[in-house]
């Protein structure tokens, strides 16, 4: 086919495009993934009665932390789903959020008597927490990647890592509904580790999955 013919054919089929609801589509995918993750959690581990959980400040600390990362991750994914997207702003926000959480954790640990440090830091479930977050992130990741493939990411590794971050953060938010740990040090370490693992895996898989 001659290039001129192609241009003619393309421009003849140029119907008005439907806006650019990139972010809305990604948010919908993340929400869908979160619902699936919640169903999985309910069937797998059960959910703490929300009325009790929502009374404790630690619950809001967890939800706040992971929701903030989710929102920043959504922004990052939205940028990297475009051919000209630059990740810097989203990345800086995520680093800031993690830094704030790390400071909170540091203050908390500094105030803890030495004998209790391990208890505060490791809690009851440190060895399971990152893996559960990773697992709950899977449906979110799949939904996000499914939408992203229809968009136009051009830095596939980075875009995959962004999707992994978002998936991990949403997975962690859902897991927070079950998790009974209450300390900032626990959340700052093990939640962050789960999200980071999700980002790393997402980047590795994403560079293959996201090709278009």
């Amino acid at each position, binding site marked *: *086919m001659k290039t*001129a013919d192609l241009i003619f054919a393309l421009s003849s089929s140029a119907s*008005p*495009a439907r806006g*650019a609801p990139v972010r809305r589509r990604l948010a919908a995918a993340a929400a869908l993934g979160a619902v699936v993750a919640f169903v999985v959690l309910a069937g797998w581990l059960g959910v703490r009665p929300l009325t009790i959980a929502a009374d404790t400040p630690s619950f809001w600390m967890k939800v706040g932390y992971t929701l903030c990362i989710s929102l920043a991750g959504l922004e990052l994914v939205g940028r990297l789903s*475009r*051919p*000209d997207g630059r990740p810097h702003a989203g990345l800086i926000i995520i680093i800031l959020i993690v830094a704030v959480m790390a400071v909170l954790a540091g203050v908390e640990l500094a105030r803890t008597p030495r004998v209790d440090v391990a208890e505060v830091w490791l809690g009851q479930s440190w060895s399971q927490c990152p893996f559960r977050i990773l697992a709950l992130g899977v449906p979110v990741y799949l939904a996000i990647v499914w939408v992203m493939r229809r968009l136009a990411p051009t830095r596939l590794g980075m875009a995959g890592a962004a999707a992994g971050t978002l998936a991990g953060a949403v997975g962690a938010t859902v897991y927070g509904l079950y998790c009974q740990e209450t300390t900032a040090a626990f959340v700052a370490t093990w939640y962050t580790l789960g999200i980071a693992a999700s980002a790393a895996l997402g980047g590795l898989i994403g560079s293959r999955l996201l090709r278009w």
Partner: protein
Amino acid sequence: MIRGLQGDKDAYRELLGVLTPYLRGHFRRRLGPGDADAEDLVQETLLAIHLKRETYDRHQPFTPWAYGIARYKLLDHFRRTGARQTIPLDDAGDLFAVENPDEGAVRRDIAQLLGSLPPRQRALMRDVKLTGLSMQEAAQRGGVSVTAAKVSIHRSMRRLARKVGDEDR
């Protein structure tokens, strides 16, 4: 582009028309002037711009967006041909140019010759000799063992050689 997105066909056509020589230059600089793939990449990029036009943010400049797609198409091309990283980009032009002295005519001849083979052998030949898959990949795609694929390729080569020889005589 914004008018094109709103359905203004003439504006859209003009935009693609103006963009084409830039894209052609962009790809030729990176692949070498004699490379037929450059024109394929131009077309692929135009098509991608069309298909992905919803990801263009109207508040951002158009050119980086379009070049983002062009860059992706080029990387994708290197990934498929396996030329990525093994050849510095500056030298790649010479190599490609030598491999494809005259794109149109040679392509047609090859297509004709391959047409004389039975379909199964033809598919294997195309995968191994033209697409550049390894023997193992091609055998997998054809659903045969590696040994069978080697035998088939060998037979095809002899057959084609005989055919070319006949015509020359």
